[in-house]
């Protein structure tokens, strides 16, 4: 299992699990959903609407919307701006899904 967490300089908070596409991943208090996925070596967060291309995290500051996933049932949720919480349910997003604009 890939673990890309850096231990130097910080101590992490409490550990818990989240579920990503049915797979259980370890997360720590203070981590975003994106960080949990990145730590596990996961690259693809969603597939695009038109061309069905894979996309992953890009800007990391909530602007580009490339990291949109279905989090706790809510589509178009930015994984880089969403804190991981115990038991949180994350799914790869396909297309734009019930786009709410």
């Amino acid at each position, binding site marked *: 299992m890939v673990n890309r967490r850096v231990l130097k300089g910080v101590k992490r908070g409490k550990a818990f699990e989240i579920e990503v596409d049915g797979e259980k991943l370890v997360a720590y208090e203070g981590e975003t959903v994106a960080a949990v996925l990145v730590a596990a070596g996961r690259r693809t967060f969603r597939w695009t609407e038109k061309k069905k*291309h894979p996309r992953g995290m890009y800007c990391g500051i909530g602007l*580009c919307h490339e990291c949109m996933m279905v989090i706790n049932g809510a589509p178009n949720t930015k994984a880089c701006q969403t804190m991981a919480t115990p038991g949180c349910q994350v799914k790869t997003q396909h297309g734009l899904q019930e786009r*709410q604009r």
Partner: protein
Amino acid sequence: MKELEMVILGAGPGGLAAAVEAARAGVSVTILDENPKPGGQIFRQFHDGFQVTSPGMLGHDYARGQKLLSEFDTVRDRVELLDNAMVWALSEGNELAFNRGDASYSVRYKKMVIAAGAYDRPVPFPGWTLPGVFTAGGAQSLVKTQRVLPGENFLLVGTGPLQLALANQITDAGGRVVAIAEAGRIENWLGLMKGALGQWQLIGDAAHYLYGVRKAGIPLWRNHIIVEARGRGQVEEAVVAEVDKNWRPKPGTYRTVEVDTLCVGYGFVPSVELTRLAECEHRYEPLLGGWIPMRNGHMETTVPDVYAVGDCTGIAGSLVAIEEGRIAGLAAAQRLGHLTTMEARERMARSRERLAGLERLREVLDRISVPRPGLYELAKADTLVCRCEEITLGEVKAALADGATDMKEVKRMTRMGMGNCQGRMCGPAMQEIIARERGLSPDRIGYLNPRPPVRPIPLGVLAGHRELQ
């Protein structure tokens, strides 16, 4: 409707400095910030849960950020900080709308300071949408404050001293930086920076980072640019080439590098959607990052009661943002009757002096890092230029051939810029690319106009919109 005496949009260096000065002068200050904690991107703090065990290892910016944040702490009881708040509309009558959690609010203000910051310049090149391609800032946010490495083998492409900082951070965290491809003429950096007398702090940073890169044995490829990222489903290799002084690849210099992660940092773009929404007048200034709001010496925009400071008014870094923030905070405090003209002028004197010193450094950095034409010639016909709506450069060119003359017409005809990012990712490069296609300067082809809501908001939240109590 409730009226705030002073509202500050953004709790980065500029916004915090404005809050400190205004609050000290007796102004009642409210800050709205998108993040859970103040600090902005550069002084970003750790989320609750992380405990910093050795702050020394976290770099100079972290230490500088802590200094400003502790200054902010001294006025903290006089400032209302609304975190996780996203401003989505500004309208006439000094009114603004923002959402926070599942609620949306309206409120009025007497004075507003916009300190919206900047973001990494998005550059379209073949393969730039592959998973594993990050903006330099995106990779940095993961390494710095989430303490995860987004890959194993990194190639850093871009320009400017920040690339060196990122290379140090990745190496220190245990990642392998295969090489740094620097588009500019780096050999002149230190010499040029020494010419900007009085800025030893920043020269020290750059020298320190350069030393770290050498010590780690990271190859520094000068005058090299990214040409393409390739891979099945994610980055597996990248192609770079040596460039001439216009950043155009030289034939016969292409080389392929096996990497899983690409960090792209060709400078920054000012975030002007808020000054645009406020209907401030803007001008196009390539040396400062693109479109920027016009201001007077008190940091006031062309719209009464609206001030703007820091990187959202032209890329100049956190030290400039802090001093501009102080000046805006003092100017607004004086206008609100908390300071006499004399008092305000006296308190501004030190900031003005520091800004004068920083100005020379800024000119030097601009000269090193301003994007050259070759950067905007990397995209091919089938390269996506609008990531959200999946529009290719070929489609944009077809729209131009069909009679589109400016940014707004291209938007209407192709949907470029209509997606979730609201043109933030495609706008800056397309401003340059479309201008070149039309044989005009970039300021002659209009711009992608932000429309409220400037960020996607669920309809349920909008339905519950109400006045702030």
